[in-house]
C-alpha cells in the first residue's frame, strides 16, 4: 500500500505539472493608431465614397439616399454607439478586461469598453452557444471567441443594423462578423471580417492596430437625445430621392479619381482593375485636402 501511495502522490504532482500553452493577455488600455484611412475614420468619410467596399447595388442606393441630417432631426439617432464591428475601426480609446473562472483561473470572457458612447461588449470564451434567431439584437451583438495558438477568433451575431462607413453605406442586422485578434509586444492587431448577405457581394476585410497605453483614462460618455433642429414641414426622415444627391461626384473631383472607382464594388478592389478603370474627370495639381493629416503623429485637419 505504501508504494501505491507514493506513486499516487507522484502521479498527482505530474498531472498538475503538465506544461500547457498559455493564451495571449489582451487586457489593458489601448489607443488606436490612425496610420490608415485617418481622414475617413476620424473626421469622417466623404459623401459618396464607397472605395474599397465590395458593396452591391442595394448598398449603393442606401448610401446615395443617406442624408446626415438624419442624426440631428431623428432624435433616436443622436446617442447611438457604433456597432461593435465599427468600433474596432478605432473610433475611440479601448479598455479590455477579462473574467477568470475562480476555480480554474481560465479566462471566461473578455470585456471591451470603448470611449465613444461608452460602448461595452462581452466576448465569451466558455463555449456557450449564440442566442436563437428570434432573440433581440444589440449594438455590440453577441460574441464568442476561440483560441487558435496566439490568435483569438471571434464570431459576432445578433447585431443591430449599422454602418460600414459613416456616409451611409449600411451593414445589415443579418451580418455575421468574425474577428481575429493577436498581439505583438505593445501592438494589438484586430482583423475584422464582415459577411453581410444584404449589402456586400463578398466579405469585407479590414485590419486595424492599437498601441498599449497604460496611462490613458477613458471617461464615461453621457448623452441625452434632444430635438436639436426643427424638421422642415412634412419631413420625418431626411434622405435624398434616387438620382438627386448632388454630392456624389465631389470625392472624385477633389482627389482626381475615376468616378467608377469611387462607387466601390468588388471588381474595383483587385490589382487588375487598374487596367480597365476609366480616367478621372478632373485632377487637381496637388493635394488640397487632409494633406498633413497625421503629421508629427498629430491631428487630422482638413487644411
Amino acid at each position, binding site marked *: 500500500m505504501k508504494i501505491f501511495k507514493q506513486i499516487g502522490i507522484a502521479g498527482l504532482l505530474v498531472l498538475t505539472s503538465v506544461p*500547457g500553452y*498559455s493564451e495571449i493577455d489582451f487586457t489593458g488600455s489601448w489607443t488606436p493608431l490612425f496610420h*490608415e484611412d485617418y481622414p475617413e475614420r476620424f473626421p469622417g468619410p466623404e459623401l459618396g465614397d464607397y472605395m474599397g467596399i465590395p458593396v452591391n447595388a442595394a448598398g449603393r442606393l442606401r448610401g446615395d439616399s443617406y442624408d446626415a441630417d438624419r442624426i440631428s432631426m431623428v432624435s433616436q439617432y443622436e446617442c447611438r454607439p457604433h456597432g461593435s464591428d465599427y468600433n474596432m475601426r478605432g473610433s475611440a480609446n479601448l479598455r479590455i478586461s477579462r473574467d477568470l473562472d475562480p476555480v480554474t483561473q481560465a479566462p471566461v470572457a473578455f470585456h471591451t469598453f470603448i470611449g465613444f458612447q461608452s460602448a461595452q461588449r462581452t466576448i465569451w470564451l466558455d463555449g456557450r452557444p449564440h442566442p436563437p434567431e428570434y432573440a433581440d439584437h444589440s449594438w455590440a451583438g453577441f460574441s464568442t471567441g476561440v483560441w487558435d495558438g496566439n490568435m483569438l477568433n471571434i464570431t459576432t451575431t445578433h447585431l443591430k443594423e449599422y454602418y460600414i462607413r459613416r456616409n451611409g453605406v449600411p451593414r445589415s442586422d443579418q451580418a455575421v462578423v468574425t474577428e481575429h485578434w493577436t498581439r505583438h509586444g505593445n501592438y494589438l492587431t484586430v*482583423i475584422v471580417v464582415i459577411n453581410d448577405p444584404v449589402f456586400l457581394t463578398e466579405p469585407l*476585410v479590414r485590419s486595424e492596430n492599437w498601441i498599449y497605453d497604460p496611462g490613458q483614462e477613458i471617461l464615461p460618455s453621457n448623452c441625452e437625445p434632444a430635438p436639436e433642429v426643427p424638421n422642415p414641414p412634412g419631413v420625418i426622415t431626411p434622405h435624398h430621392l434616387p438620382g438627386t444627391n448632388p454630392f456624389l461626384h465631389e470625392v472624385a473631383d477633389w482627389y482626381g479619381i475615376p468616378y467608377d472607382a469611387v462607387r466601390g464594388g468588388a471588381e474595383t*478592389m483587385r490589382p487588375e482593375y487598374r487596367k480597365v478603370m476609366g480616367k478621372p474627370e478632373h485632377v487637381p*495639381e496637388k493635394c488640397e485636402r487632409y494633406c498633413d493629416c*497625421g503629421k508629427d503623429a498629430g491631428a487630422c485637419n482638413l487644411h
Partner: protein
Amino acid sequence: MRRILFAILIVGAVPALTFAQGGRGGGRGGPPPQGKAGAPVDLSGYWVSPIFEDYRWRMFTPLKGDAASVPINDAARKIVDAWDPAKDEAAGEQCKAYGAAGIMRVPGRLHITWQDDNTLKIETDAGTQTRLFHFTGQAPKEGEPSWQGYSAAKWEVTALPGGPAGVGLGMLPRQGTKSRTLDVVTTQLRPGYLRKNGVPYGANTTLTEYYDHWSEPSGQEWFTVTTVVTDPEYLAIPFVTTTDFKKEPDGSKFNPRPCTAR
C-alpha cells in the same frame, strides 16, 4: 517521507526531460526548430491583396503633397512637396516605391515559396521584386543596401528567452504561447518611398513585420502582415499598417510588371 520524495523526483523527471525543449516538439533540448521544419503555418502559394483600406493612396498614385495618415516629420514634408517622378525616372529609381517598407501596400500579387530549408522567398508581380526571409540569424555587418534589404526571420516563440517559460506547480516548464506568427526584421534598406507620391523613408529604417495566418469560416485562407516602419530620419513615430492577403488557387493571375515612378 524520503521514499515519497524519491518517487516524485523519479516520476516527475521523465516528463520534465521530455518537455525541456519547449516550443513545438522536435529533438531533446535547444530552441524550437526554425525555417521550413519549424513552420506552424503554410504561407506558400499565390496571394492577392484586395484593396479594402487606404484605397485612394494605394490603387492610384496620390496627388502630390498628400501624406495623409503617415506620421511624417518636417524633413519628410519637404521631400513630399518636392516629389518629381520624372527625376526618379531619369535617375533610374523607378523602384523607390517598391522597396521592402512599401511593397506590401502596392496593389499586386505575391508568390511565396521555400527557396531552401532556411529561406522563404516572396516574389511580387508589382515591380518584379524578390524578398528573401533568412531564418539563419541577423544581417551580415557589411551588407550593401538594397530595395529589399536583408530580412532576418523567425517563427515567433513567446517563451522567455534563454530558459523555461516559467515554472508550473510541479517542476516542469511552461511552454509560453503557441504562436503561429512569422516575425521578420529588415535592415540595410536603400532609401525609398512609403507611397508612390514620394512619402520617404531613409537609409536607417528598420522594418519589423508580423505575418499572421488565419481563415474564414468558409475555409478561405488569408494572412495579415502588420508592418512597423521605424525611421528616425522621416517619421515622428513608427508607422504601423496592416495589409491583408487572400490565397488564390493558382498563379494564373500573377502578372509580373516593371516598376513605375508615376
